[in-house]
């Protein structure tokens, strides 16, 4: 073997060793990265797992043990919890569904109308009204709660669903309006102009052109509206007095008794059931949400 051949062989061996070392380092880095991500995910998901586990535990086991797995799964928590309160959870879920569905419909219709006007129509004081609308985003709900309550009290709407539902039909949520404005603005104006030449009125342009093209934005608004209304506690607490009219979050609060023993297992069981509609909606529509947020320029 010549010196040149020996040298080439040595180089090849060194290169192979180098490649092997590099592959090893990459494997180790990937392993550590996954360990870290799994740990971080576990921290994030732990409260949910804890609630799920607690829904199957006896009350004395919930706060007495650190482990997640129930020693003896209490499936009765679900059946007993459903009827544990003076009114069945069937009623509470129905109430929540009515309020939520009406709110979602109201929000989507009214906010898209307002957004269309801001994004596409010309009217006096448009900039001023837009700024005013955006300012409402900065006012905390708690600030307007009392004046709103007094207004609804005067109208005789307290202890009905009207205060929870009617404002949704009046484009009261500036966040959704803003979301939709951003989306509408991305649609080419030539579409409106072509539709105008094709004989469309402004409403027909909204209905036949803008709305079908804005399904991602509408879905995003609908899903956020669904989640926020479904889990709203303060609104129903302020306006609803009769247990027959309670929504699910108010009903869950009733499990915490101040003068007797609280049924935590049943409460967690009902809490698990209460988040199922949200999870279901999110799983089904998550692609639309992400697409909607990405397309509307919101982060």
């Amino acid at each position, binding site marked *: 073997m010549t010196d040149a051949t020996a040298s080439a062989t040595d180089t090849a061996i060194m290169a192979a060793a180098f490649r092997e070392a590099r592959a090893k380092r990459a494997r180790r880095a990937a392993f550590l990265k996954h360990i870290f991500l799994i740990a971080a995910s576990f921290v994030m998901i732990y409260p949910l797992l804890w609630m799920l586990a607690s829904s199957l535990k006896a009350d004395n086991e919930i706060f007495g043990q650190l482990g997640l797995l129930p020693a003896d799964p209490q499936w009765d928590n679900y059946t007993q919890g459903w009827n544990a309160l003076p009114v069945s959870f069937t009623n509470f879920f129905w109430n929540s569904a009515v309020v939520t569905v009406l709110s979602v419909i109201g929000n989507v219709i009214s906010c898209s109308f307002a957004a269309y006007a801001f994004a596409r129509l010309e009217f006096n004081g448009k900039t001023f009204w837009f700024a005013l609308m955006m300012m409402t985003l900065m006012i905390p709900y708690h600030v307007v709660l009392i004046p709103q309550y007094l207004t609804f009290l005067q109208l005789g709407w307290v202890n009905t669903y009207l205060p929870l539902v009617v404002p949704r039909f009046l484009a009261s949520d500036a966040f959704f309006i803003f979301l939709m404005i951003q989306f509408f603005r991305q649609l*080419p104006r*030539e*579409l409106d*102009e*072509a*539709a*105008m*030449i*094709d*004989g*469309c009125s402004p409403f*027909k342009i909204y209905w*036949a*052109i803008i709305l*079908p*093209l804005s399904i991602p934005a509408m879905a995003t608004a609908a899903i956020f509206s669904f989640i926020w209304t479904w889990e709203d506690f303060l609104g129903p607490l302020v306006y609803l007095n009769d247990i027959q009219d309670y929504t699910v979050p108010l009903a869950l609060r009733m499990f915490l008794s101040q003068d007797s023993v609280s049924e935590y297992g049943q409460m967690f069981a009902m809490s698990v059931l209460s988040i199922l509609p949200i999870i279901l909606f999110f799983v089904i529509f998550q692609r639309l949400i992400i697409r909607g947020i990405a397309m509307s320029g919101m982060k």
Partner: protein
Amino acid sequence: MASVTLSKVVKAYGNVPVIHCIDLEVASGEFLVLVGPSGCGKSTLLRMIAGLEEVNDGTISIGDKIVNDLPASQRNLSMVFQSYALYPHMSVRKNLAFGLTNLRMPKDEIARRVADAARILQIEPLMERKPRQLSGGQKQRVAIGRAIVREPQLFLFDEPLSNLDAELRVQMRVELAGLYQRLGTTMIYVTHDQTEAMTMATRIAVLNKGIVEQIGTPYELYNFPRNRFVATFIGSPKMNMLEATARGDTAEIAGIGTLKLPDGVRGQGSISVGIRPEQIAIGDGGALSVPGKVSLVEYLGSEIFVYVTLPSGERLLVQAPGDARIHNGEPITLSISAAQAHYFDAEGLRIGT
């Protein structure tokens, strides 16, 4: 078919005027092309005719009816947009039928018109597709189809071929010209591409900074430009302009020589002499021979563009046949014919006929 008359039309955005008192007559059945550089107001003018922009002053008439306050949908016109503006959520068939449905036309009449348009534009196999499933050329056909199904009295085109590649643009240009011959409807066509303007128009209106510089047939604009702007804007490659001093029937072109002006052309003082690249001959023999040096040769196949630097430092562009053997850096002699040149006074207005 309808005529279009613009009378002292003015448009301003806030305090910025974009259209200055334009008068324009488009005869019934005419193919008028509005051409001009970017920002000259040609699209604004078209949109005002369409009813998509308000008219600040003056009147626009379609046929014998003033349409200033008439909504776009009631002007009985169709418009093809640069971006096609097809409704993305509708199939080709629905795109074509949408305007007719809004007119509450009977369904069988809609079906007949849509089928006719599809046949004329050869888009029958595409009828159930969505616009995103079409190529640029197919989209443009659908956009044109949407315009023709309405059988309007006026077609407006806003740079409809700008988004197409060069080959498709030529093909569509030919098809549009064929469509015009077939339909015979009045068409107003906006473009910044003068080849489109020259090949398709029965008349061309050259716009610049919100005014009409000249209206005429392509032949008139090319051979008798009214002013320096039209002379340099129309024609590709661009007309060469040489500064000169006129003394009666002669013009002294600085650093080149004296040119005897043709009959009917007289001047005093500063003038411009315009010579189209194809009207400069290579070699001696013209009214004025000019020596120079070839600084660049662009080979286009059937022709070549030769950039010649004169001793005065000025550069002339010369168009020569593709088989001419001319190389960079070699000396060259050019001949200029006084009769073929164009003459403009100090204000840029044409001298003579």
